[in-house]
């Protein structure tokens, strides 16, 4: 029992020889975000507040594909999306198509709390952000040099990259502007507080070179994000596979309808998903944590009240 928290910064084909200068800032980012979450939970913050805080932290870190550092659409713009869900009430909020809102996750929370709706997208979501007075900036704020390069490479390769794949590069070139393994991914966080309340939050810039208007799994309740009284789940990977697998809801459904443990439910969902498509972090009401993936790696971190802490990228031995 007690509180527990887990977070991710994207799952995908992360090469085992990821250079230290690429690995380190991301590990640091995960560690810092974990600290933010742990100290919130220790000071009695609700799970819902903790996941929002952690995802804000990850959105503000340009090393991850959410907020600043979001990957670019085929027209070079940023379209961010996010989703938050409170497991005890099953209240939820989601946003898509944001181009100026600094913290998409906080706008999702406002949709949940201040509108009769769950999900707002594009111009309507931007107008709501202005009405609520949340921090907005010029869209160029979110665009990093690395992501411009990544888009150019994707266009050269004439394909849509999934949100966690390394930038495409010609075989064996070691000196492209963005070296292989410059992994970035969707971010997410799940937590259970000392009262057993569960919450989840996920935020993303989507796919490199995605079509303008593309919506992925992240903002869809039951796909990328889901929480109820059993567990809280945030998924990452190939959005289209996660949507069709209703991945986040299925972890909860297996616990609810088949009485599986969190570990068995989450493992089964990830195992049944097509290889190389899915990773997730999940916590249960009892304070268990699991972070399975069927990709090469997943940037992830977790901590529990009894003192276990982990920050990792590749499978643990």
């Amino acid at each position, binding site marked *: 029992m007690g509180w527990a928290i887990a977070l991710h910064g994207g799952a995908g084909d992360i090469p085992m020889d990821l250079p230290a200068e690429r690995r380190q800032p991301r590990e640091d980012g995960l560690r810092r975000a974990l600290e933010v979450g742990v100290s919130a939970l220790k000071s009695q913050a609700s799970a819902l507040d903790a996941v929002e805080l952690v995802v804000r932290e990850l959105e503000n870190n340009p090393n991850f594909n959410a907020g600043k550092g979001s990957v670019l659409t085929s027209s070079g713009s940023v379209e961010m999306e996010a989703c938050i869900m409170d497991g005890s009430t*099953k*209240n*939820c909020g*989601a946003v*898509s*198509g944001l181009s100026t809102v600094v913290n998409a996750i906080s706008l999702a929370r406002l949709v949940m709390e201040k*509108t*009769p*709706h*769950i*999900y*707002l*997208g*594009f*111009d*309507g*979501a931007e*107008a*709501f952000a202005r009405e609520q007075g949340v921090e907005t900036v010029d869209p160029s704020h979110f665009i990093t040099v690395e992501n411009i390069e990544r888009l150019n490479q994707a266009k050269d390769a004439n394909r*849509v990259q999934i949100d966690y794949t390394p930038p495409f590069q010609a075989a064996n070139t070691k000196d492209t502007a963005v070296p292989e393994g410059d992994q970035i991914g969707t971010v997410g966080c799940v937590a259970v507080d000392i009262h057993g309340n569960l919450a989840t939050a996920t935020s993303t810039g989507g796919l490199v070179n*995605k*079509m*303008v*208007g*593309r*919506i*992925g799994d992240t903002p*869809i*309740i*039951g*796909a990328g994000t*889901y929480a109820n009284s059993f567990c809280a789940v945030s998924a990452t990977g190939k*959005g*289209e596979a996660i*949507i*069709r*697998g*209703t991945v986040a*809801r*299925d972890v909860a*459904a*297996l616990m609810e*309808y*088949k009485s599986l443990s969190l570990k068995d439910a989450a493992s089964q969902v990830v195992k049944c998903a097509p290889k190389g498509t899915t990773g997730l972090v999940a916590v249960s009401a009892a304070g268990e944590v699991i972070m399975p993936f069927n990709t090469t790696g997943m940037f992830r971190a977790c901590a529990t009240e009894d003192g276990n802490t982990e920050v990792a990228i590749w499978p643990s031995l």
Partner: protein
Amino acid sequence: MGGWAIVVHGGAGVDPNLPAERQEEAKQLLTHCLNLGISALRSSLPAIDVVELVVRELETNPFFNSGRGSALTEKGTVEMEASIMDGNGRRCGAVSGVTSVKNPISLARLVMDKSPHSYLAFSGAEAFAKKHDMEMVDNEYFITEDNKGMLKQAKEANTILFDYRVPLDSCGAGVESPIVMNGLPISVYAPETVGCAVVDSQGRCAAATSTGGLMNKMMGRIGDSPLIGAGTYACDLCGVSCTGEGEAIIRGTLARDVAAVMEYKGLGLQEAVDFVVKERLDEGKAGLIAVSKTGEVAYGFNCVGMFRGCATEDGFMEVGIWE
């Protein structure tokens, strides 16, 4: 067992005082759509083509809330959404914020078939439609005089209540406690989402849902209809389309849960439908239709009435509004 089956809906939550001629008109339209689907199934069209065909017909007819006849946003415009899913391979496509595509369900199908994505929205969805030469019309085409009147009434009815789940005891008519759905009196809410679920004679299931959304909705509001697992879902076991209070359907992941309780609890189709209506809707009002791969049809709702019709290969056919 086996054989094809089809079920179609024109929304859940019907004004008990709906004039008799409107009821008759609804039944005729549902019958017409069923017959369209039946003859397609008899000509061996796959389930995915049949659901698209039937929903196109419902979109084109202004009676229900999809395509022409869609509910209006707070600004008086139309923003439509739709999704389609083929249980065979669990392929899916969805669109939101569509303002000038004549048949949003066919755009959702195009997203499934011709884009690397599952879901496109707003200007990106419109651009994709143009690129593929879909039939486009002015936004005005979708706006009916009836709905302009309804929007005015909705605004007068104090707009969308902040939390529609709290106030009223519905399901029980009566003049003193008017029925409210989605925060609006049922008489205003009248125009409703459409959907279709089909299993073909080869046991392939598919589902499709299309809507204009809520009357007087905020610009940019996305409901359950385009969300896979919420408003629409199909897999190798069943096909499901939901309608009603979108936010309750989203929270309940209603369409996926019909399949999930069949898969994980071993329930039959009608049991699964009854289970989710009873256990998964918190205080929300909604209805849903479903088919199973073995050729069964089922529906369920927890509000006053649902426009629906169903037919199976062995000759069963039913069109109804009330319980």
